[in-house]
């Protein structure tokens, strides 16, 4: 009894010490290497772009965006997706049902709609994402169209409402999105059960939506309900959330609700991963690296400038030229002399869209895709 009390006392002291150490060490997210911490409850984590130098982004480096707290871990055996609304038979689909359907793998870039918000002037409320709210993964699961066939969708349905298992705190709105049937039925739109062959809870398993080429907000995690509807529906996260002006506004001015529309496909964009911004590098040959993506299109070319945009050189691109997924690029370069250099990258997609110098300001700070820029100091060898 005495020993037990002593043990209990020692355990309490150890627990207090552990809490102290944890507080001093900061925030650790299981399964994730050191990431940029925008928020810890709920988790909003940005990837340092130096980790984004491979075609498939490792899971432990992949960015995380939660609007509201993620749900408690879902027991795969108890997991159900309800298909309701304009269907011939309301259905409860199990994980085993989803696993029995033909499985497809789609490589696709997932980007937070607000990636780059921090670069807009005037400043805008929200997570101040820099350049790393983006990653490229291989998503595997049944086509969303095959899942809906299990319940028989009425042909008059024009939209699909999608609800995730995450729910708001107090009166924070539930996370519900709505998508036109044309995109729902696209063969690359999946209800993914795996990401890079794994099942990471933080990224939305047992099943998350994969909406290739569309903004991250469309990719609903922990999907629990699919409801075909005749009209576009949805709460805050459809309207006023995640809307973009139909035409450019003077920076700093509000938009009238009628001037805003739902965001769908993403713009063309490139990001430099090496050299690191504001780094010092010894004068020697180097390889400038980065990645480029273009929503529903593929990347046609990337140009790089090492003199602030006076001259542009074509970069070499990785061979896979796919819609939805990014391409890596590189350019061999030897600085002529020591000094400060401004390196830029500019992507063009297969539809001829070009990354702009100045992206259009918008009241929520979405879709930043300005030409990427890093500054480096080259020192004598």
């Amino acid at each position: 009894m005495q020993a037990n009390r002593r043990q209990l006392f020692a355990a309490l002291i150890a627990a207090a010490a552990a809490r102290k150490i944890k507080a001093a060490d900061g925030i650790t997210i299981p399964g994730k290497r050191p990431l940029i911490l925008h928020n810890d409850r709920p988790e909003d984590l940005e990837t340092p772009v130096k980790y984004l130098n491979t075609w498939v982004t490792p899971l432990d480096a992949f960015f995380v965006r939660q609007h509201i707290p993620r749900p408690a871990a879902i027991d795969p055996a108890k997991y159900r997706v309800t298909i309701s609304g304009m269907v011939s038979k309301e259905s409860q689909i199990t994980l085993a049902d989803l696993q029995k359907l033909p499985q497809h793998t789609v490589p696709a870039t997932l980007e937070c709609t607000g990636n780059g918000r921090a670069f807009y002037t005037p400043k805008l409320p929200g997570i101040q994402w820099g350049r790393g709210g983006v990653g490229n993964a291989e998503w595997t699961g049944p086509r969303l169209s095959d899942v809906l066939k299990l319940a028989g969708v009425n042909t008059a349905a024009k939209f699909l409402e999608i609800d995730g298992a995450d729910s708001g705190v107090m009166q924070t709105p539930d996370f519900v999105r709505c998508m036109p049937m044309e995109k729902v039925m696209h063969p690359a739109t999946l209800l993914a059960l795996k990401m890079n062959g794994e099942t990471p809870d933080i990224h939305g398993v047992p099943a998350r939506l994969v909406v290739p080429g569309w903004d991250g907000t469309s990719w609903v995690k922990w999907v629990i309900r699919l409801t075909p509807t005749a009209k576009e529906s949805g709460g805050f996260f459809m309207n006023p959330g995640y809307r973009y002006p139909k035409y450019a506004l003077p920076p700093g001015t509000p938009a009238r609700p009628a001037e805003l529309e739902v965001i769908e496909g993403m713009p063309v964009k490139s990001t430099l991963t090496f050299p690191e911004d504001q780094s010092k590098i010894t004068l020697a040959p180097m390889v400038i690296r980065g990645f480029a993506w273009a929503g529903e299109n593929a990347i046609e070319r990337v140009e790089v400038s090492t003199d602030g945009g006076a001259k542009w050189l074509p970069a070499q691109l990785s061979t896979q030229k796919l819609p939805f997924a990014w391409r890596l690029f590189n350019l061999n370069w030897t600085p002529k002399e020591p000094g400060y250099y401004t390196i830029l990258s500019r992507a063009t997609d297969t539809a001829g869209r070009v990354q702009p110098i100045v992206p259009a300001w918008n009241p929520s700070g979405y879709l930043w895709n300005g030409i990427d820029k890093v500054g480096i100091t080259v020192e004598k060898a």
Partner: protein
Amino acid sequence: MRTLLVLLALTTAAVAADPAVIEKGRQEEQRTCLPCHSLRIIHSNRLSRAGWNKELDKMAGWGTKYSDREAILEYLVANFGDDKPVTPPDMTTDGSAKK
């Protein structure tokens, strides 16, 4: 009339800088914001008075009950106004070995 306006503006500025009001606002932030989310999301933003006002309205619409709305607004403007320098975010520590 102009003198009156200038005096009024000076009075408002004096209230804005009152450390007791700012402290009250800080406590109000702890009480009203922490139940739903951590404070990093607030402290990483830099907004004008109008911008913070709008955010407070948005949160009120989602169920936040302020006991001293003026104090929290003054606290936010004084610490996280659009004239304040941006602080780089922290990094998480390495959790890649944990599942």
